[in-house]
C-alpha cells in the first residue's frame, strides 16, 4: 500500500502535466512516468506478468513508437492555443470534472466486498495460470488477436508505403542536372566551401570569410542558419583580431624581438598594439579602405 500512496500523487501529477505541457515530447515523457508507475502498481497487485508486459510493450515499444513519430513530424510541432469551437476548452474541462466527480462518488458509494486475493489463483505461478486461461477459455479471442496483429502490421505497411512516381535519379543524371544548373543559373558546380574554423572552437557554425571579408553563406549548414545559431561575421572578425593578438597570424615579423609590432595583417599593415581590440575595430574600416593602397 505504501507503493500506492507514493506513486499515486506522482502519476496524477504527471497525467495532469500531460494536459498542460505545450510540447508533445514532454507529454510523451510524462506518459512514460504514468506507465512505469502503473507497472509498479501491477506488480504490487500480484500481476508480475503484466508488470513485465507493461514495461516492455507500453513503455518500451508503444512509447518509443510515439517518440519516433514525434521526431519524424518535428519536435516543435506544439499545440496551437486557438479555439476553433468557441468555449470548447471550458466545456470540456467542466464535463471532465463532472465525469470525474460522477465516477469517484459512484465508486466511493459501492462496496467492493471482501478481497479474495490472488494467492490461490497464482499458486502454480502467475504466468502458468495466465497461459492456462489464455489457451483454454480465451483461445478464440487469442486467435482473433493474431489476425488483428497481422492486419495491423500490413495496414501500417500500406499506409507508410509511398509509391515512387518518378524514376530514381542515377549518378549520371545528378551530374547532368548539376551542369544544367551551372549553365542556366550559374550555380557553383563543385563542392560547397568548408566552414571557417578559426582555431577558436571546432566550429561548423562560423562561415568562411571570402577575400573581401564577407562571410560565405554556402559554407555553413542550412539547418544552423534556420536555427539562427550562426556566428555573425563582425563577431568573428572581432575574434580574429583578438586571436591574432595572442598567437599571431603567420605574417607577423619576428625579427628583433618586438612581439607586438606587426609588419602586415590580413587587411594590410597595422600600426600599434594588436591587443587593443577596440581601437582596431574602430580603425578597421579605415584600414580596409586603404588596404589595397599599401600593397
Amino acid at each position, binding site marked *: 500500500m505504501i507503493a*500506492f500512496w507514493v506513486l*499515486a500523487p506522482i*502519476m*496524477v501529477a504527471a*497525467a495532469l502535466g*500531460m*494536459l498542460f505541457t505545450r510540447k*508533445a515530447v514532454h507529454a510523451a515523457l510524462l*506518459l512514460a512516468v*504514468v506507465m512505469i508507475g*502503473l507497472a509498479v*502498481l*501491477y506488480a504490487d*497487485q*500480484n*500481476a508480475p*506478468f*503484466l508488470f513485465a*508486459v*507493461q514495461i516492455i*510493450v*507500453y513503455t518500451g515499444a*508503444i512509447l518509443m*513508437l*510515439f517518440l519516433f*513519430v514525434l521526431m519524424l513530424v518535428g519536435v516543435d*510541432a*506544439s*499545440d*496551437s492555443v486557438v479555439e476553433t469551437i468557441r468555449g*470548447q476548452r471550458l466545456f*470540456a*474541462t467542466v464535463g*471532465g*470534472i463532472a*465525469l*470525474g466527480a460522477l*465516477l*469517484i462518488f459512484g*465508486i*466511493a458509494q459501492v462496496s*467492493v*466486498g471482501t*478481497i*479474495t486475493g*490472488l494467492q490461490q*489463483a497464482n499458486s502454480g505461478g502467475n504466468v502458468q*495460470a*495466465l497461459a492456462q*486461461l*489464455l489457451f483454454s477459455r*480465451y483461445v478464440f479471442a487469442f486467435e482473433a*488477436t493474431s489476425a*488483428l*496483429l497481422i492486419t*495491423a502490421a500490413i*495496414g*501500417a505497411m500500406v*499506409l*507508410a508505403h509511398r509509391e515512387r512516381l518518378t524514376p530514381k535519379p542515377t549518378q549520371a543524371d545528378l551530374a547532368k542536372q548539376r551542369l544544367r544548373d551551372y549553365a542556366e543559373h550559374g550555380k557553383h558546380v563543385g563542392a560547397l566551401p568548408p566552414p571557417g574554423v578559426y582555431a577558436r572552437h571546432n566550429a561548423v557554425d562560423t562561415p568562411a570569410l571570402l577575400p573581401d571579408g564577407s562571410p560565405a553563406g554556402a559554407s555553413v549548414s542550412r539547418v544552423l542558419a534556420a536555427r539562427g545559431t550562426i556566428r555573425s561575421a563582425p563577431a568573428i572578425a572581432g575574434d580574429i583580431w583578438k586571436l591574432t593578438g595572442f598567437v599571431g597570424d603567420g605574417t607577423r615579423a619576428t625579427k628583433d624581438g618586438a612581439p607586438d609590432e606587426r609588419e602586415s595583417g590580413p587587411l594590410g599593415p597595422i600600426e600599434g598594439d594588436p591587443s587593443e581590440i577596440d581601437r582596431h575595430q574602430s580603425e578597421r574600416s579605415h584600414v580596409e579602405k586603404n588596404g589595397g593602397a599599401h600593397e
Partner: protein
Amino acid sequence: MSATPFIILSAILFTIGAVGVLTRRNAIVVFMNVELMLNAANLALITFARVNGNLDGQVAAFFVMVVAAAEVVVGLAIIMTIFRTRRSASVDDASLLKY
C-alpha cells in the same frame, strides 16, 4: 489492502485522459491521452482481478494491451500519412468530411 483507492486512481487517470482528448489539438498528444485512458482501464481490470480472486481480469488487461499496440501502429501510420499531405499534425486541419 483495500481496492477502492486503486479504482479511484483509475477513474482519475481516465478522466484526465478524457479531458486531454477533448482539449488538445495535436493529434499525437490526443493519441497519447487515449493510451492513458486504456491504461487506466487496465488498472481497474487488474484490481478487480485481485478482488475476485481469479485471473480473468488480468487476461482482459493483456488483451487490451495487445489491441492497444495494434491500434497505436495503425493510428500513428495514419497520422504520418496525414502529416505528409498536410504538413500538420493538428486535428483541426483534417476537416474535409465536414463540408
